[in-house]
């Protein structure tokens, strides 16, 4: 039987200016899911529902086998959550926060925390009000990582970090990959980080799930061609997401790439000059343009 880190079945929620309907999203245990979407796409709402902080109007939500929001207390013992809008108590030190977390979670690993402190270049006795944005984000992550939660939920963990801090954070996240019982859900509009670490890509836009697929086949299904066209070229090609023409050259983007696709293009009168893979960022933009 497949174990799931979380499952959302047919989840709907309505706000005055936002609605999410019939969302189905689940993550097998041991995998990393990247949640991609523009601001306001519903990433944070999804995450809040998963943390039991917002009750969906309908649908079932389970995390680590517990029903949410009813059994969120048990679930949250094994979930670690950090978001970029999370703040610590300004008047207290990081050490105070570590002691506080340790008093709640017996599993908090002080040795690992000390290790992270060094690697993240943080000072335990410094008051939170004196530290920079990047250090604060790393401090929040330290508090979460040192308990080794079974499910890590990170809302924009790398937003606003400088490249060095981002590298440090990614490096620690990668460490989680070693354990096949630990799962990660992270949202980001930095598609780069998601492209690197995720096994699954979930694409949200305006409260709808545009795609949910394993990253390798997802990236592979998209391709961009530069073609030469002639008078016999047809107007459209099967599976093309966009066709841009300029003089005798056309750029075609497809979301249904297979080795036969080049032949299909040829038949439609487009002779392929170049073929490119697309980065997640390019796919992201193309996908949103298509769906709107």
């Amino acid at each position, binding site marked *: 039987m497949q174990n799931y880190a979380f499952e959302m079945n047919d989840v709907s929620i309505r706000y005055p200016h936002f609605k999410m309907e019939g969302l189905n999203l689940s993550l097998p245990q041991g995998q990393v899911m990247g949640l991609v979407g523009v601001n306001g796409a519903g990433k944070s709402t999804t995450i809040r529902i998963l943390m039991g902080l917002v009750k969906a109007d309908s649908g079932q939500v389970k995390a680590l086998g517990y029903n949410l929001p009813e059994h969120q207390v048990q679930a949250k013992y094994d979930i670690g959550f950090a978001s970029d809008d999370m703040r610590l108590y300004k008047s207290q030190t990081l050490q105070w926060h570590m002691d506080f977390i340790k008093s709640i979670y017996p599993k908090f690993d002080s040795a690992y925390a000390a290790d992270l402190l060094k690697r993240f270049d943080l000072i335990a006795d410094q008051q939170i009000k004196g530290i920079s944005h990047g250090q604060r984000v790393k401090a929040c992550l330290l508090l979460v990582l040192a308990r080794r939660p079974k499910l890590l939920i990170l809302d924009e963990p790398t937003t606003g970090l400088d490249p060095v801090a981002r590298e440090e954070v990614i490096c620690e996240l*990668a460490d*989680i*990959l*070693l354990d096949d019982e630990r799962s990660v859900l992270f949202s980001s509009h930095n598609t780069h980080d998601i492209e*690197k670490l995720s*096994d699954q890509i979930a694409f949200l836009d305006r409260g709808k799930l545009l795609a949910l697929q394993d990253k390798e086949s997802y990236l592979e299904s998209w391709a961009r061609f530069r073609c030469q066209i002639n008078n016999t070229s047809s107007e459209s090609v099967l599976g093309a997401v966009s066709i841009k023409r300029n003089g005798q050259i056309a750029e075609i983007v497809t979301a249904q790439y297979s080795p036969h696709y080049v032949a299909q293009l040829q038949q439609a009168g487009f002779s392929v*000059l170049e073929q490119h*893979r697309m980065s997640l960022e390019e796919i992201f933009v193309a996908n949103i343009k298509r769906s709107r």
Partner: protein
Amino acid sequence: MTFGLFLSNTDKKPMYLQIVEQITSKVLIGDWPADMPLPSIRELAASTQVSVITVKRAYLELERAGVIVTQAGKGSYVSANTDLNQQLRRQEFEQQLADTINLGKQLQLSDEQIIDCVAQQLLMQTSLKSGVKAGEQ
């Protein structure tokens, strides 16, 4: 520790292919000898900061190409196949030749022109090395 793999985000090749190529070349050079156990998929993923699914795919491709052997429950090993070296080099040669031909096509060269170019290149190399006696095995 990255197990000696140097992966790049700016490389045009997909990540799994970079892993396949770099491991293949390690085996070719002999840095990774026959029967050497490979790092587990999760170990390699964590150390290179690449997702598990990507490494999984790379290992599958490597297995298909005969570079590594995977045994259920035991992990993966460098293949002990003795012809492997020859086979791999042959594969690499074919790959590079295919790339060259593609480039030629982009330059709008006809098939005959491409064959001519190859013939010319062969001729030049033999005349250059005629005195030295070509050293390639």
